[in-house]
């Protein structure tokens, strides 16, 4: 399953350059069971389908999900034959502690406590398939 995460406020084609380079707009999540992966995204981390939705979607179709923070997730499914290892998936938030707390109540399993780095505040969790995910609140430290 391929996931492209876009912010609604930004044009899809011409994104503004950012101070920090950690922002990615496209990443790959590997899932053995597509329906289980979608259940995790929808039921655990709260993304809502923008149209008619079932937990099994045919490959080659795009699926659009929105979260409560205004982030949009475009899911493009492709069947892979290889057994590649887990990638790191970054979910962007405008308030890491709020979403950390929300996800804990939804039963998400975190592998660390929220911690600070040069990009902002982040916390790591595992999804249903054991993929490593990061919830990241980017912060700009150059303002007065």
């Amino acid at each position, binding site marked *: 399953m391929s996931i492209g995460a876009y912010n609604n406020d930004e044009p899809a084609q011409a994104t503004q350059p950012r101070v920090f380079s950690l922002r990615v707009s496209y990443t790959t999540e590997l899932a053995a069971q597509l329906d289980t992966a979608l259940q995790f995204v929808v039921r655990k981390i709260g993304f809502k389908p923008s149209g008619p939705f079932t937990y099994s979607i045919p490959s080659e179709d795009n699926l659009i999900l929105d979260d409560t923070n205004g982030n949009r997730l475009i899911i493009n499914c492709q069947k892979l034959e290889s057994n590649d290892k887990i990638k790191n998936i970054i979910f962007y938030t405008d308030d890491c*502690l709020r979403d*950390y*707390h929300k996800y804990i109540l939804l039963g998400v399993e975190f592998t660390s406590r*929220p911690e600070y780095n040069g990009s902002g*505040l982040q916390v790591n969790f595992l999804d249903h398939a054991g993929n490593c995910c990061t919830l990241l609140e980017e*912060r700009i430290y150059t303002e*007065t």
Partner: protein
Amino acid sequence: MKFLRVLKNENQISGETVQQAYYPEHVSNFSIKTVFSGNRTFNIGKRQLSLYPDTFVAINKGTTYWSKVDSSVPVNTLSISFSPSFLSDFQRLQKNNHRYLLDEPFQSGEHPDFSFMETIYPFSGDMKYNILHLKEHLEEGIPNDMLINEYLHHCLINYYKVYNKEVVDKSENLNFLNSTTKVEILKRLTLAKEFIISHYNKDIELEDIAQHACLSVNHLLRTFKQAYGQSPHQYLIRVRVDRSKYLLKNTKYTINEIVEIIGFECPSSFIRLFKGLNKVTPGKYRTGN
């Protein structure tokens, strides 16, 4: 908007927007206070600290103080008071590893007293982000104590970082072998810094700063430069320019009015200084171009 939130663990957060207010003398737990607009004056003993939106003040448990707001613009204030048990738990969590905390889950005996340097600190970076998030949730009236305590825990993490940067690191910069001398000099330099921040828009002389800090002028000049890497005059200019940046971004005052507010005499010298420090003119800084 006015709110007061008292948590089950006795942490307490209050906020309000006022133009004139008097908060009579009282004693509180360890607390962090800030303003998001205008300014508020705190009187701790003979010291007077003026708080602006780019600063916060930390007050120790047991300190007696009073404060007032007397402003031409609405002053949005926020005060966070930490219960001794919360502070004590936080300290234990920072100091000890998980195994120890599992073996000794509860603090035995009285909560130890923690004493920090009571002064004005810069309100920026993670400290500001977290407090702004917390304020937003409190104004929305979120019911969850657990989430508020998470923000308060991070307030303390960030306060420790600021404290290390502003107090511990600065004292290490001082060229004195005796640690007691270092601490005493830093305390007096802190008085000098507070005086500059609180009177930044007035015509202050080096002698005034030295007298307030109980240091001779030469001693002040030498040690201030050691600790903060700049002279008191350069520090004063920096405070004025930083305050002008806030006013440029958050008010509709003209540049000439801002120049007057921050205590500069000549707009052209202000513009030259501003450009020298920020590589952009005040007008362009305001519009973001």
